[in-house]
């Protein structure tokens, strides 16, 4: 079973001159930590948005655990998937606890079970002392960690993270990566996008590199590195496929 499978995925936004996705096809096996990599504008966020049901594709199909992403299946997919957006999608005027309680309520949790769940996650992410502090006053790392907690309250089988470690310090990054490993060890699937290729190489069992809305290569990081004699790491592989031209 694949955690995700996209086939010939196409998307052209209204008014856009060029398509964002031009027949992207790729699959990730269930229970793996997979990386969706690509330069700016490659189509990573559009792919994730289609997988979550936030954007309708112009063509092609997307499946999550074999369920086609259609309006009829949207609720079932939402229950199976947790998305950590790149932005800190929390209310800065609310405390971490209030934010998590609100999103927990939206997931249908309430009362003591929710309280315990929140406190457990806050503790796991080292935020228990800041539980009643407004998130607007958090450091970058604290915000990122709280952002992740808000997406895993319903314990999704698939966790999709968009740049989860952008702008955080070494300690926070280490804590986040450790959490991803542990979450994956429980049998859950993780897909994440990042520009930090060293980090992807370190954590991902499989990566897909996409560019200009198409898949350019896919495989385990070590396999991809081994395919090209001049490539010493994933960054070299990335540059080999996507070139050195700066993207806007």
């Amino acid at each position, binding site marked *: 079973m694949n955690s995700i499978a996209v086939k010939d995925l196409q998307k052209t936004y209204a008014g856009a001159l060029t398509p964002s996705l031009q027949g992207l096809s790729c699959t990730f096996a269930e229970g793996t930590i997979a990386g969706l990599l690509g330069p700016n504008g490659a189509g990573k966020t559009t792919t994730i948005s289609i997988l979550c049901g*936030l*954007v*309708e594709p112009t063509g092609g199909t997307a499946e999550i655990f074999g369920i086609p992403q259609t309006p009829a299946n949207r609720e079932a997919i939402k229950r199976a998937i947790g998305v950590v*957006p*790149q932005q800190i999608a929390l209310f800065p005027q609310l405390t971490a606890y*209030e934010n998590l309680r609100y999103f927990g*309520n*939206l*997931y*249908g949790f309430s009362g003591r079970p929710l309280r315990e769940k929140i406190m457990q996650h806050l503790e796991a992410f080292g935020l228990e002392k800041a539980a009643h502090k407004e998130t607007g006053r958090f450091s970058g790392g604290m915000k990122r960690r709280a952002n992740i907690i808000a997406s895993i309250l319903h314990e999704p089988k698939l966790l999709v993270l968009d740049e989860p470690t952008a702008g955080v310090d070494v300690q926070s990054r280490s804590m986040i990566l450790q959490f991803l490993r542990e979450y994956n060890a429980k049998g859950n699937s993780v897909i994440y996008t990042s520009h930090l290729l060293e980090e992807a190489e370190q954590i991902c069992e499989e990566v897909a590199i996409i560019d200009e809305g198409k898949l350019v290569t896919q495989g385990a990081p070590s396999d991809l590195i081994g395919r090209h004699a001049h490539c010493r790491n994933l960054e070299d592989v990335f540059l080999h496929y996507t070139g050195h031209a700066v993207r806007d």
Partner: protein
Amino acid sequence: MLRIIATIRKEWLLLRRDKAGLALLFAMPLVLITVMALIQDAPFRDYQEVQFDILTVDKDQGRLGRYIREGLQASGQFQVIDSLNGQPVSEEAAKEMVGEGKYKISITIPKGATAEIVSNANKIVNDISKRMGLPAQLPVKALSNDSLAVQLYFDPAAKKAFKSAIHQALDNFLTQVETDLLLERIQLQLRNRDSTQQDTFPAIRLKAVALRETSVGEGKQIDVISNSVQHNVPAWSIFAMFFIVIPIAGNMIREREDGSLVRMKLIPGNYLSVLSGKLLFFVGICIVQFYLMIMVGLYLLPQLGLPQLQLGVDHLAGFLVAASIGVTATAYGILIGSVFKTPNQALNFGAVSIVILSAIGGIWIPLEIMPEAMQHIGRLSPLSWGLDAINDVYLRNGHIRYVLPDLAKLLCCGGAMLVIAAMVEQRRIG
């Protein structure tokens, strides 16, 4: 239900921590209403409670001058002044002081005015007597080439309506004096003809039919609409309630920008329940706002010397009107928050559009005194529907059935705005 309650609690926490937002929603409208009611009190009182000083120069010293003085005093709106510093006012001095704006009006009763009226009455009675074959006995003055006139001087800044009201009042007094004197002369002539019936001769009744004003409402004060509090408190309350579009639109755009909207949409369950919680919360805030402002009209403004706000007889109807206005205002905020991409665009458009809708909707000045074309346009403004409904309840003592058409318009308009907002959001997904 949990999602709705959670959203209401979240919105409450967000608002509670937004001091500027709280001030915008509650403190500023209270100040606005108080200031507007105080400022507009004078124009509303112009022809009712405010007493104007009127300079009178009575060169006649007869019955006409007395009637005019007594009539003006009796109206309660004028203070007749015929001497300054113990000296009678001269016509020249009066003209000068009115010209300088120290007084709004001066009246000069010419010498011989009463005698002229008496002579004219005598002439009429003599003519009638002659035609009836009776002797014409009453003295008549020789015809004068110069017709006498009561001379009026107005402050150049006096309003046209004020001048017209004074003209009408004085014309009334003149007619009254002339009629009274004519009737007196007729009685006198009749008495002269048959002096034996002098004591039993019935008095001629001047007014056979009187005017009487009766309220069409139930126990309503007829003049209540004419005061500043009764117009300003409901009108500016509606205006302030519509200003809720600013925090709503700002809040929605911020949620979209910081990604929390995406998070909410990714959570299983209909996003409409989140939107419903938001709608209920802000409608609740609108109702609280409205009743706070009503309390200003009930308790604070009377302390400042203004009349107390009258609330009509059907309080449930008043509540439903406030809630319906709240629904429309909140829906408008959600629409603006959905359509505009940046807080600046939304806030500027929101504020300016409310000012325009309120101006054409009769919030600033009543619709009735606007040009006809503007009245038609104004009746399309939701603020005018709200004000109409409030006036139906507070001024006409209307019950729910009186306000149903306006409530239906407000709720339909709110519903339409929510549908458009949903379509805009839907289009974004595409």
